[in-house]
């Protein structure tokens, strides 16, 4: 590990001011991802600004019926919260599908969104990687590809975002609350993470020194049913090959509203807008779900080693939507 400075932020202003003052400073929250990366030599900030004791630990109702989740809320606490379990079951399911109990006890809401990719080449400083070392090349293009993107990738990077939690948040139209040197702002979660383009180094639209303070969840209609499904290599403790978060509102056999996001397929949680458009107003039948999945995945451009994920994503999506429709019909 390379030596670094450490500063425990006393309040939000202190955190932002300190982090902004040094170009390679980074925030430390739960540390489950960052501590590992410091050890592996993936990143070597000269200053860590510890935000774990800032007052972002609450889950509060919002006036419009939604919920505000503080950035410091632990994944385990969020998954166990009665409101989350009742109103956002797919979020609770996604949290429980990710990491282990011990890690969820440390990992925070904000930190979860800022997880870096588990691409094996990104995690190995001995191999070229445009995300870790811009311009060095992408090892995955000629390498092991089964964990890589099928949607929205670029010639510079085919990595996928690893978060389970972010997938239902994308489907839910959550908003990420930020504070920085230029004030506060809210960014829709679907616009928070970036596609790699020609700047794969940047995972998100965060400016340097900007800090996540909360994530806002909008209210869902009470008739909405939601689910999270994760397909992976072993039954637990593995990142998704493909995951699906879906919320479905059906009345009289017709899809009134639907929100779908896919995980494990792109550099960001992939909001399946084409599938949603295809489905709105359609009959809630497997054939519609299949057509919607195919519409979404028509633009998939897998690598040879990730071709299976297109089918896997389609079948997982059809299966989840069919299950939700059947559940609603009972």
């Amino acid at each position, binding site marked *: *590990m390379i030596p670094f400075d450490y500063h425990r932020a006393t309040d939000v202003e202190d955190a932002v001011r300190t982090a902004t003052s040094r170009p390679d400073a980074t925030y430390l929250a739960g540390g489950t991802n960052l501590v590992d990366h410091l*050890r592996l030599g993936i990143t070597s900030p000269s200053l860590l600004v510890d935000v774990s004791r800032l007052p972002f630990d609450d889950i509060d109702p919002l006036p419009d019926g939604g919920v505000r989740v503080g950035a410091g809320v632990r994944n385990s606490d969020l998954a166990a919260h009665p409101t989350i379990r009742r109103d956002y079951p797919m979020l609770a399911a996604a949290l429980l599908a990710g990491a*282990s109990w011990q890690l969820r006890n440390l990992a925070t809401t904000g930190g979860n969104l800022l997880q870096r990719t588990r691409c094996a080449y990104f995690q190995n400083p001995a191999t070229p990687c445009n995300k870790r070392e811009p311009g060095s090349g992408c*090892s995955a293009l*000629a390498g092991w590809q089964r964990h890589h993107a099928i949607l929205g990738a670029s010639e510079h990077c085919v990595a996928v975002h690893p978060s389970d939690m972010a997938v239902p948040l994308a489907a839910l139209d959550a908003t990420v609350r930020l504070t920085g040197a230029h004030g506060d702002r809210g960014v829709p979660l679907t616009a928070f993470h970036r596609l790699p383009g020609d700047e794969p180094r940047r995972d998100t639209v965060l400016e340097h020194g900007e800090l996540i303070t909360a994530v806002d969840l909008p209210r869902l209609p009470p008739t909405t049913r939601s689910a999270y499904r994760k397909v992976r290599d*072993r*039954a*637990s403790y593995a990142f998704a090959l493909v995951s699906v978060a879906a919320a479905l509102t059906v009345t009289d056999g017709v899809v009134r509203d639907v929100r779908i996001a896919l995980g494990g397929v792109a550099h960001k949680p992939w909001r399946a807008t084409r599938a949603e458009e295809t489905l709105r107003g359609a009959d809630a039948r497997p054939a519609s779900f299949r057509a919607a999945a195919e519409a979404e995945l028509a633009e998939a451009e897998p690598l040879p080693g990730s071709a299976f994920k297109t089918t896997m994503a389609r079948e997982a999506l059809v*299966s989840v939507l069919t299950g939700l429709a059947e559940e609603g019909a009972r």
Partner: protein
Amino acid sequence: MTVEVNGRSLDGPTRPGQCLRTYLRERGLLGVRKGCDAGDCGACTVHVDGVPVHSCVFPAFRAVGRRVTTIEGLARDGHPHPVQRRFLDAQGFQCGFCTPGFVMTAAGLDTAAGLAGTPPEELRRLFKGNLCRCTGYRAIEDALRGVRHVEHPQAGTAVGRSPGAPAGPGIVTGTARYTLDLDVPGLLHMKLLRSPHAHARVLAIDTHEALRVPGVRLVLTHKDAPPRLYSSALHESVDDDPADTRLLDDVVRHVGQRVAAVVADTVSAAEEGCRRLAVTYEVLPAVTDPEAATAPGAPVVHDKDPVTSRIARPRDNVVAELHAGVGDVDAGLRSADAVYENTFHTRRVQHASLETHGAIGWLDADPATGAERLVIRSSTQAPFLTRRALCALFDLPPDRVRVVTALLGGGFGGKQEMLVEDVVALAVLRSRAPVSLEFTRAEQFTAATTRHPFTVTVTAGARHDGTLTALKLHVVADTGAYGNHGPGVLLHGCGESVALYRCPNKRTDARSVYTHTVPSGAFRGYGLGQVTFAVESALDELARRLRLDPLTLRERNLIRPGDDLVAPGDTEHDLHLGGYGLDQCLRVVRAAGSSPAEPAPPGWLVGDGAAVAMIATIPPRGHLADAALTLLPDGTFALAVGTAEFGNGTTTVHRQIAATALGTTVDRVTVHQSDTALVGHDTGAFGSTGTVVAGAAVLRAARALVDTLLDAAATFHALDRARCRLTDGAVVCAGDRVPLEGLHAAALAAGTSLTATGHSRGTPRSVSFNAHWFRVAVNPDTGEIRILRSVHAADAGTVVNPLQCRGQVEGGVAQALGATRSEEIRLDPTGAVTTTALRGYRIPTFADTPRTEVHFAVTTDDLGPFGAKSMSESPFVPVAPAFANAVRDATGVRFTTLPLTPDRVWSGLRDQGR
């Protein structure tokens, strides 16, 4: 700035970058284990403010002002925590390295009522942050649920019962001590610089900058290393392996090979020293594929003399080969009604024992002679062979070197290898200071050994009735950059896998090939897993071509009592059917197949599959063991054995054997083990020999001691020797009773001690049998596979300890399922290992592992102690083919490459046009 740990305030600042685990271990809380350093394995789990966390990713400074509880602080008022009690009662462990983590995770739950009623799904979710490599999780689940398995057999009846492991109380309380759990004052730390190139000549190493790093004491390069070549593999016969390895070489042959060693006051100074070493390489052409390595003009991995190096054909990159046959295979194939041929591939997999390789070395004075002695405490399965190798390397006589093995945190063959002791010994001899080396988890993946990847082409022919007419193998094994275990794994792999079948015409053409990749080595099954996958898959397919039930085809051809065991090229003649329970194993498997189908998800395809396997109970060409039993003043016994305990349970078994022969209870026998200062010789804890070889030596020592005690009683107390017999705690003779305490005192007064020794040479050898059966469901759209039922039948002869033997089977099945379904060491085009963490190298978790029904054949062996056979490697062997055969039954697709990941299954189904 204090941290409250187990109710006490610990002072002393945390260091920058220090994790809580290191902080706690440096303060003597050694039950907090280091398994991965990345939050993957859970062995370091502690509570912070009552909540379980991985202490390896928890910055130590964050614990300031918080309440930390470790395994050592879990007991209350001298009473173990209920979870600790349950782990002891169920024996929810084998090597025990992961146990404190499991216990702490469980203790973080509300366990007042235990987890007896917790749904399986919930348990699997809660424990996904804890990995176990030994047990297959069944014993852990039983512990969590409060099931009692451990028995307390009466005097003289321990064999066949299930007393607990002697190390158990230490394991569940965190006081058990593994290799590096030792506080040595003035300890220096070593880090190794490793090669970034697959093949290169080291032209120069500039050490100046490294030596200027504060705290760096010593830098070792090839210029410091003895010129001698040896093999890292450990075998009774040194000639079994090629001499192709140098302690530090001026040629590197795989990415990750050691180039130099830096010894410093701290680990971080040693790391910094490694970064400051400037190495000039001449990069040479490399070959990473075994087929390419044997093509004309391929780069030569070891340009050495074939006679002195014992490499079969160095210029062709062939370390060992076998070309042999019996009968006429071509004629056999011509006379067949159906012939099946296919090529099967197994990949690199790794032991992934939770304790990485490590050693501590120091100099002391021999207590007997006062002469200076090199002491190495290391994670080896073979301390005596390690001593012999060190003596040869450094020109030292045996009495100047002592090698000690503490408890081992898993081995599985990976520690039948000298990967750390040689370089630590060199550093100790040079620095004259104590030196420690511990592999990181990444080093374990990139620089320890793996299972040999095999490519096996099987050609099998049979008549309409299923009678085999020909069985032909063409085998290429990839031994990697060094030939350690290359010849042995190849020959063993091609041995029992075909000797299992009566077939008049057999032919094997096999070679083990060098490539510029991480070296392969010994791993559970020793080649049999790879070849059996091919043979058992091929026979399943051959039966289908003949429209025969696959089990019927096997029954028609499997060896029976009275048959010779015939494998082409096998020159050993000491292998016998000492007992025969294969028929019983087949009956178990057949009954499983005719049971009602388990429910599968709608739309999933369901299939059944089985496979059988045979393994010699002892490796060929000698496996030696000494044991010594001594009566102690208090009337109990001290048993000394050379073999090491790595969770395989030999300590328990040895105690049972000795106690039974001595007519006493196991608690009156204390075992001392795995220390070259204890007994004359022991080949080591490998080759499944703990029960059948070391156990045989123990039995002989015990029987000899009975005679000695009766003689002593007759002599010292003037009794009729013919009427004396040994009971629990005393020699009785008609109406006289001589307590053993009194006997010891009488002997002491006469100037003698009551000791006896036993020896075993490991020959003749018997065979064990295993059969496995699966029912699986396959999702045709995603390639996901679910195991609906898993059944294993084993012929272990007399089962000395049913609890432990069942655990060996469950653990072997789980480990094999990892290799079958999800584990693969991946290399990039340069041959560098890219799976360098447990999160990417997917060993089975709790949730992945089905509960396997284990059945033992009722047999007894003519050769083993109390009729026992070995049962530690063999359960691994039939699992992969049984699984692939079940998937074939479900899908119609024959999968020939492991592991059967969802994408590989999906691709296979797609290619077949489903």
